[in-house]
């Protein structure tokens, strides 16, 4: 059997939806990740989209995606016995990951569930806190959601149209980036702990982790004292931007100085298909060849070139509009032009390249007790490791599915005691 990269690492995952991805990344790499849920289950178990469109706590595709490979136990941290049980479980763990809100954090601390105390008792323990704004600082108490993090990190202001509102990037990207940051921190601390025997506290501020996606906005402020604004559809020069095709859209990045993918090749392509019109006149290729990034920011230079730019735009727009998105994408790429199809989920699901690479996984996911498993096509991993490949070993757990296995068999709670704890609602 292949060894996994994170063999023998036990992680307790107490996160809400905003921290799910950290545990997923580590579980897929082989860690034993145990979801520690409240007695009624993680409240986010019911989030859309759903299997067969049927809303429910055992049918959330979102939950399945982010929680496969994890085991589930339940425990009520509001009860004394629940906290004692949790304490016993922590003793078996290498890493704890939580994403408590500030009020939750102080409430639990008052009850004695407190990272510093746990780490004092267990010096090699790593405790990872995923927070919206960090554990200290004036906004450490602020509430956060994906939208709020995108607003506060300087990226929402860059997305959207200049005459419309700032926009959120799809896919709960703030939670994704939070998960990546926390997984990095957990692994860095693990390398350190395994080398010197000392664990430590790790902290992700989603605002900080996401803010690096401002690209150059903050750097431009530092150098020039101006804030970058969203540009929407204002193509700074023809060849760059979103273009309509016969059946959708493509994004074209042709002619960016220093990126290859030159306009001369685009003109050759149009010419070979009899659609270049007057763009075959040398002035067009020369103008684009001599263009540099600096000119993009200089209004006078742009104005001088306007007649050439406008004509090139007109011809190119008609050219792209004569093709399907897939044609423009594949034919352009065959000429080494930077063109991407604006792909919908269906386009990605049907993509020949991802299929040929066997990226998708097939998983049998139980839906509810007694019912047949759902056979689902599951997105593959972000990376492929040749010696320690990621794998999905088990589907997402039902609420408390591993209570017996974890509490009795692994933590060593006598079975009759577990029954008593269950009777009083502690598990």
């Amino acid at each position, binding site marked *: 059997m292949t060894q996994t990269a994170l063999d023998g690492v036990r992680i307790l995952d107490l996160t809400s939806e905003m921290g799910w991805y950290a545990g997923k990344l580590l579980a897929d790499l082989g860690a034993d990740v145990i979801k520690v849920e409240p007695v009624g289950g993680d409240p986010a178990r019911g989030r859309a989209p759903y299997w067969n469109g049927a809303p429910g706590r055992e049918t959330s595709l979102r939950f399945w995606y982010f929680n496969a490979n994890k085991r589930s136990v339940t425990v009520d941290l509001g009860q004394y016995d629940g906290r004692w049980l949790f304490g016993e479980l922590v003793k078996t763990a290498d890493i704890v990951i939580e994403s408590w809100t500030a009020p939750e954090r102080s409430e639990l601390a008052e009850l004695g569930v407190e990272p510093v105390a746990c780490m004092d008792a267990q010096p090699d323990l790593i405790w990872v806190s995923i927070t919206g704004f960090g554990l200290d600082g004036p*906004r450490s108490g602020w509430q956060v959601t994906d939208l709020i993090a995108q607003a506060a990190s300087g990226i929402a202001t860059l997305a959207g149209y200049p005459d419309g509102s700032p926009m959120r990037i799809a896919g709960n990207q703030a939670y994704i980036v939070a998960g990546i940051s926390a997984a990095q921190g957990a692994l*860095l601390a693990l390398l350190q702990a395994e080398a010197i025997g000392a664990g430590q506290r790790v902290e992700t501020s989603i605002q900080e982790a996401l803010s690096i996606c401002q690209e150059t906005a903050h750097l431009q402020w530092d150098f020039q004292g101006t804030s970058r604004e969203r540009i929407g559809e204002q193509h700074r020069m023809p060849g760059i931007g979103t273009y309509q095709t016969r059946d959708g859209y493509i994004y074209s990045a042709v002619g960016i100085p220093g990126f290859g993918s030159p306009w001369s090749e685009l003109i050759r392509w149009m010419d070979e298909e009899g659609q270049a019109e007057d763009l075959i006149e040398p002035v067009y290729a020369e103008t684009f060849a001599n263009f540099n990034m600096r000119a993009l920011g200089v209004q006078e230079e742009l104005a001088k070139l306007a007649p050439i730019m406008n004509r090139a735009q007109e011809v190119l727009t008609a050219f792209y509009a004569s093709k399907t998105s897939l044609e423009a994408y594949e034919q352009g790429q065959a000429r080494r032009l930077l063109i991407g199809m604006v792909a919908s989920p269906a386009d990605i699901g049907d993509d020949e390249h991802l299929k040929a690479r066997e990226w998708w996984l097939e998983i049998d996911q139980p839906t509810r007790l007694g019912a047949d498993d759902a056979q689902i096509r599951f997105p593959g991993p972000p990376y492929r490791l040749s010696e320690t490949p990621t794998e999905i070993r088990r589907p997402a757990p039902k609420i408390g599915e591993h209570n017996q296995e974890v509490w009795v068999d692994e933590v060593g709670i006598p079975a009759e005691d577990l029954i008593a704890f269950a009777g009083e609602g502690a598990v």
Partner: protein
Amino acid sequence: MTSQTSLNGTNGTRPLDGIRVADFSWFGAGPIAGRTMADFGADVIRIESEARVDGLRLGQPQKPGKSGYNVCAYFNNFNADKRSFLLNMSAEGSREVALRIIERSDIFLSNLTPRVIERWGLTYEELCEVKPDIIAAYQPMQGLWGPHRDFLGFGAVLTPTTGISHLSGDPDRRPVGVGTNYPDYAVNPGHTIVAILAALRHRRRTGRGQRIELAQIESVAATMGPALMDYTVNGVNQDRKGNRSTWMCPHGIYRCADDPSGRERWIAIAIRDDAEWESLCAVAEGSSFASDDRFATLLGRRRNEAVLNQAISDWTASFDAASLAVHLQSVGIPAALIQDAEDMCEHDDHLAERGFYAYLDHPETGISLYDGPTVKLHDTPGYLASPAPLFGEHTFEVATDVLGYSAQEVAELTASGVLA
């Protein structure tokens, strides 16, 4: 402002001390991964060449009044803490030098295309010949094999090809992406680091290195799991829905009063349950929505979402966005000012107090802003020890100290155009 903001009082012990990275990457996704390793203690040798200058060295923003390879903040931010080593891989004898670097490294990092990797003779199998336990991380756009193996791209092309553009933005307008090369900054470098750290652990336990293949299109698609599964499981092809949420309502970005200079100001508000809705109504007493029964329940709010959003916009229009966000947060409502770069760098007291941004003194750009480490380890924090290297700044130093060439050999390799 000084560089001290990033140092966090550390005495220097970091998790990747003693690890050396041969960083053959360029532009964004590769160099950022290298920088994270440098922040946490690795010796990252960034391979550059006059024959193939990183486009970001020539990009924007550049320090006003300066020119050349060393004054672009876009490059500098991603390469702090590294050493710059010139090596022209087109010159005869260059591969031997490259392999000598790899032989003395723990990690090889590259976002070059598969064609260039093969042309330069830097495939995993070839690296293993000189360094059997190397951890070799490749970030090809679509993978090292497959029908689209040679497709080109970067973040602005990945945003559309992975569904982010289709699913982001105003449903009534054309999909224009998200305004940046988004996947290049946190997603692809971040995933790469996670894989490298896992591989490092495996190497420590078994002595074995491995190849990491991060196909950038797969790495970004993996962030879109639920939407992709709605199609692969249910056959439902989702569309973009602006700033609306599938379950929170209201959930949006609302215009507030312009600031005195005429700058647009906006606020984000996300209401997760009826209790937060009631809190919002209490704050907005007297507004048109606060006493409207249609909005009392989640279902009612969702059914009348367009009307509700208009009513909230009417209400927020007269407020100062930053003050309103503070007030809403004080009663437990998720809200935030839509921050622009000025807010991030000048007015965000919270970020400033946490010392997130580092200000490092660079020989050509002066004191300049750099992103801090994006995760905080309390006992062995990452930090930025030095600003970005000048182009080729460490060629001699690396050639002699790391690679063991004599000064005479360095002179010859320079004269023959290898170290250039």
